[in-house]
């Protein structure tokens, strides 16, 4: 193992490979900032370019692009409330309110530091526990996944304001309903109204862009006075200071630490990934926060921004455990990475760790080098990136609308999605004016498909009996946590008055 790590270090720190990671991070950040082009598209776009490189350099370039694209996605979520990738949705909850109140620089800096913390803690855990964790991830059954998805759904309580738990739950159910559009696990079409473009269901990006970016842009036109509300001189257009105060550091460090561990553990589970990790981390941090800090969530809480950022990066690192040790891609991004690795002649799987430790460790080390370079590269660039907010409103709003529409088109290349997006955006505008929270709807939508899939499989294994919910200790524990975290806020909401 030590020899493998040494070889990995030598490979990752050669001048050519350092240049590759630098270029990768820069290109990844630029691509990731464009709505619709997330890490998956960024890596896919880079694969043809990497064919002319040595496999190790190619992998390092891809590692840089990967982390760069994740950071780029968070940047657009914070600055213009356009989370181009699902992992950045929770980042927008507090990142965007911070940007609106003149703290865009601080929000971007917290995102960069927290991502770095997530990547670092993830890498350390990866070094220490790779063989054990690979075994643990395989011990998860459909029943456990179903319980985990339900537990993820209880995070809706975290996205609801005071006395809004019922509204949040309704929106989560609405999201689950929307997730049933399209082909079900047995291949039957549901709610497609005979429209072939709906056979694959509603796209996540379409829904997130329409409900966040598009609706937000329209609301800012509807209420022009709100953009300068708050009386802050830098409100909505300024960068503000990049420096974190002592109180900020005191809030960010423990939140990032906890969320990194949680994110890493969730990331190991194939299929769970960065999105669930970021939502769970956000919900957990809100539940742990004292009442005064809890009220700040959704209004620019430093903890609320650090938690999902650390968790999604740690989960990205964690997702390499099943990929490298079992050859199982746990997410779309790692599936593309698997394709790239195979095309370079590297076959991930149980034998890789034993037969080719040098390759195994150089991939992991290059991922981490990408993380470091990203921090060094992007912190000085923050003032320039945040200038996006200084574009005058009559230019900025049409550009946000245009990027949202284009982002959705670039994913599907289907013009039907453009029309659907306008319809969803208009409905989202009304729903937001009615003061119903949108985040629970997205969470329900993300988890809906996986929830139904795992429920069916679990029922099939248990011959249609719901006893699977308490048969295994791990399922029973997650279910107990789910019931607890669901009942407490509901009772609180019902009997508060």
């Amino acid at each position, binding site marked *: 193992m030590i020899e493998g790590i040494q070889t990995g270090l030598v490979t990752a720190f050669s001048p050519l490979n350092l240049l590759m990671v630098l270029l990768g991070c820069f290109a990844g950040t630029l691509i990731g900032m464009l709505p619709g082009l997330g890490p998956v598209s960024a890596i896919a776009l880079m694969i043809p370019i990497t064919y002319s490189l040595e496999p190790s350099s190619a992998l390092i370039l891809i590692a840089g692009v990967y982390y760069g694209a994740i950071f780029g996605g968070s940047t657009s979520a914070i600055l213009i409330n356009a989370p181009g990738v699902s992992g950045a949705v929770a980042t927008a909850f507090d990142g965007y309110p911070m940007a609106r109140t003149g703290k865009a620089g601080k929000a971007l800096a917290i995102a960069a530091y927290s991502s770095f913390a997530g990547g670092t803690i993830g890498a350390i855990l990866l070094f220490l526990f790779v063989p054990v964790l690979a075994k643990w991830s395989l011990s998860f059954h459909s029943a456990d996944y179903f319980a985990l998805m339900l537990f993820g759904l209880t995070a809706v309580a975290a996205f609801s304001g005071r006395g809004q738990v*019922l509204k949040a739950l309704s929106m989560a159910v609405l999201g*689950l309903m929307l997730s*049933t559009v399209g082909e079900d696990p047995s291949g039957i079409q549901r709610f497609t109204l005979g429209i072939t473009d709906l056979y694959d269901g509603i796209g996540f990006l379409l829904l997130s862009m329409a409900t966040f970016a598009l609706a937000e842009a*329209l609301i800012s036109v509807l209420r022009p006075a709100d953009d300068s509300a708050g009386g802050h001189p830098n409100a909505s257009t300024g960068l503000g200071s990049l420096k974190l105060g002592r109180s900020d550091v005191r809030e960010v460090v423990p939140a990032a630490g906890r969320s990194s561990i949680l994110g890493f553990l969730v990331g190991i589970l194939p299929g769970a990934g960065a999105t669930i990790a970021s939502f769970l981390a956000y919900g957990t941090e809100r539940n742990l926060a004292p009442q005064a800090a809890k009220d700040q969530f959704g209004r620019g809480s430093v903890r609320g921004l650090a938690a999902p950022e650390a968790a999604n990066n740690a989960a990205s690192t964690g997702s390499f455990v099943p990929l490298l040790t079992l050859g199982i891609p746990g997410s779309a991004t790692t599936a593309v990475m698997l394709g790239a690795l195979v095309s370079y002649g590297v076959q991930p799987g149980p034998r890789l760790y034993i037969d080719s430790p040098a390759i195994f460790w150089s991939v992991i080390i290059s991922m981490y080098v990408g993380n470091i370079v990203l921090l060094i590269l992007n912190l000085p660039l923050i003032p320039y990136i945040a200038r996006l907010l200084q574009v005058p409103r*009559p230019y900025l709003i049409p550009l946000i609308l245009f990027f949202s529409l284009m982002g959705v088109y670039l994913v599907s290349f289907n013009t039907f999605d453009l029309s659907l997006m306008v319809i969803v955006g208009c409905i989202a505008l009304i729903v937001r004016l*009615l003061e119903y929270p949108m985040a629970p709807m997205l969470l329900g939508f993300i988890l809906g498909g996986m929830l139904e899939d795992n429920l069916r499989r679990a029922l099939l294994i248990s011959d249609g009996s719901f006893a699977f919910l308490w048969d295994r200790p791990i399922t029973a524990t997650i279910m107990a946590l789910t019931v607890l975290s669901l009942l407490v806020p509901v009772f609180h909401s019902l009997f508060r008055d």
Partner: protein
Amino acid sequence: MRQLDDKTRIGALLLLAFTAVYALLARRIPVDALDDGSGMTSQSLPFGLVALSVVLATIQLVKPNADRRPFLADHRALAWRPVAFLVLLMVIYAITFPWLGFVVSSVLFLWLAFFGLGAATVWRCGVVSLLFVGALWALLTQVFGLYLDPGALMAWAGSVRT
């Protein structure tokens, strides 16, 4: 009427209406004749969600609401006209995109949107949108190698010329 003008109640009524339509469509889902042994059909989850949604919406309708927030009175004075203008532009963009293609429809969308929101003079808005879309087109097609639809009319014009 005043009792009904409440954001929570209007929201709950809209959710109930959506749920009713969803339930009607759920009844039309064909049920797989082959039982896979799970006891679940394609209708199971949708009907479960309908029940849940009805319960949640009803509680919101029935529950006494001390913090009543009027909807109609709150939003009558807002700037609906520019919003309607932008929505109309987006609809036109979605309709014309397959015909005019990425470049022409995008330039027209941005041009009209910039001008409509009062960014600058009509010519300046046109130049800005042309330069912006041109740069983006070059980045996406020449650097990233993505295919952007030139549009049916452009393709037709090209075939006529050849």
